[in-house]
């Protein structure tokens, strides 16, 4: 009897050794349900994909898929609605926060966010951005800052670093003639309407985790009607930076992050 039991146990252990552990019980990380199966159109290594996935993860974890409306910008992420399985609107260039305002005002119990790039949010849409923040609209603005116009082919953005090359600053951004990079996140943090303003990145696993926490907190604050939450995500643009994805992340660490330091710029009070 004992012998037989031992044999079975041994056999079972052997089975574990040999069999794949890839069974549902052992899943520790899987694509969130709110992220669709549609292959993304982004270039290899682009940070948009991670940012999309984090939003989807947070929406899943808070179980708010049926209460969330997103606004896509004009730029590379114009097709964000193809990847997020939620109701979405596609706004005109720069107007996403105004569109989000319109949605939130008529649907105050729903979760509303806009997802905007640097050209969209900090150049053509600066007015809408500042006033949406200043009104303290109870929404989340996700700001993807890669320091360049991606969709149109690598032109200088409001956030392009001094000396950084782009197709419209081929010799590097000359701040005397082209102006300075706009730290719009620091700027809007000054406004009384903003509640939580933070800057994240998605270049390392640790930063990805932090970015997700920032997004999650923002939705939680929105539920509590705390006011505007603003999450900047500093990302790469391998194609237009003319680098490999790995080189672009290295460049991001060495150049973007010193200029756009990570962390909370405005911590929630009370």
């Amino acid at each position: 009897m004992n012998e037989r039991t031992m044999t079975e146990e041994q056999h079972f252990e052997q089975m574990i050794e040999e069999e794949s552990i890839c069974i549902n019980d052992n899943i520790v990380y899987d694509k969130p349900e709110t992220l669709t199966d549609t292959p993304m159109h982004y270039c290899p290594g682009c940070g948009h994909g991670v940012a999309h996935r984090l939003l989807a993860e947070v929406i899943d974890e808070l179980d708010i898929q049926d209460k969330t409306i997103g606004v896509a910008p004009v730029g590379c992420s114009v097709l964000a609605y193809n990847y997020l399985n939620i109701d979405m609107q596609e706004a005109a260039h720069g107007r996403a926060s105004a569109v989000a305002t319109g949605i939130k005002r008529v649907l105050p119990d729903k979760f509303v966010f806009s997802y905007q790039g640097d050209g969209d949010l900090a150049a053509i849409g600066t007015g809408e951005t500042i006033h949406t923040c200043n009104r303290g609209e109870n929404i989340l603005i996700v700001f993807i800052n890669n320091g360049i116009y991606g969709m149109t082919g690598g032109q200088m953005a409001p956030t392009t670093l001094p000396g950084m090359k782009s197709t419209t600053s081929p010799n590097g951004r000359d701040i005397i003639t082209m102006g300075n990079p706009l730290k719009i996140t620091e700027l809007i943090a000054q406004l009384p309407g903003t509640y939580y303003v933070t800057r994240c990145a998605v270049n390392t696993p640790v930063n990805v985790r932090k970015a997700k926490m920032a997004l999650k907190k923002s939705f939680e604050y929105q539920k509590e009607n705390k006011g505007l939450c603003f999450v900047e995500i500093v990302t790469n643009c391998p194609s237009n930076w003319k680098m490999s994805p790995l080189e672009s992340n290295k460049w991001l660490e060495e150049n973007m992050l010193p200029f756009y330091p990570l962390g909370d710029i405005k911590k929630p009070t009370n």
Partner: protein
Amino acid sequence: MKKEYVLMKGNEALAEAAIRAGCDAYFGYPITPQSEILEYLSLNANERTGMVVLQAESEIASINMGYGAAGAGKRVMTSSSSPGMSLMQEGISYIACAELPCLLVNIQRGGPGLGTIQPGQADYFQTVKGGGHGDYKLITLAPSTVQELVDFVDLSFDIAFKYRNPVMILADGALGQMMEKVLLPEQKERIKEVPSWATVGKSKDREKNVITSLSLDPHHMEEINLQLQAKYRQIEKNEVRYEMTDCDDADYVIVAYGLVARISQKAAHLAREKGIKVGVFRPISLYPFPYEALNKLADNVKGFLDVEMNAGQMIEDVKLSVLGKKPIEFHGRMGGVIPSPEEILQKLEEKFAGELV
């Protein structure tokens, strides 16, 4: 039910009509001569019906807030005057392509540029021929009285939702500013149903809703355009509106819209006192334009006088209606000048001098 007649300023009457039509949201920005709309709604519209009233930072923001709220399936309105309307054109093009119902109001002033704050009709091309980019059409209603300004609000919402298309009420500064006796409609309840296409949060039992005007596939984008065009053909079939005054026996017909049509009616009256048989044809829907009715009318008259407060814009549609059957003369005033009935009669007599004797 006791009828509620009041003496009201055009802009305020329009705002009151919006509240009573169960409008869900209004986004606006101050500009003369229509600021009373925003002011009136700011007073207590929210307390009365729960309607959202928000002063935006610009017309660009207000039209895009309108896009968002309309995309959520609500009855949404914005208003402006000529220069502000120019700023809204991009948003209107998006709204038209995304097929969002909403009500736009342009209380026109004289242009171009900053122009004047006095009334004008020079935004006809911008409104009817597509002021924004791309092939889209704006259903356009032109009221000539404060009463129509009121009545067209509810009508516009109905038409907008019927076709999922923006509707423009195109009036002028004089109509917005003048006071008239109006019969106010009864208070309607705000509509609770959510249109199937609205972005209100994706429930488990349906696919996600996406409000967009984008397609990167040319064949698909052409398909979207073809669908829009098919819708416009339906609108052209069903939504033509016009008014004919004393046209049955008229030798000459004045074609005018809005306030100018009313002035022209007075001119026609003066003409008849002098023994000249004059009628007035007033397009109420500027898009769709009453081409057929005007074309038919051309069979029975000797000539037309088109009168506008601009350099001659609607006259192009009048010509496309009459198709050379009869002569068409034009009289226009610009810069905010309103023509007088006597002046219109004088022009009619001058233009058709040989025949009138």
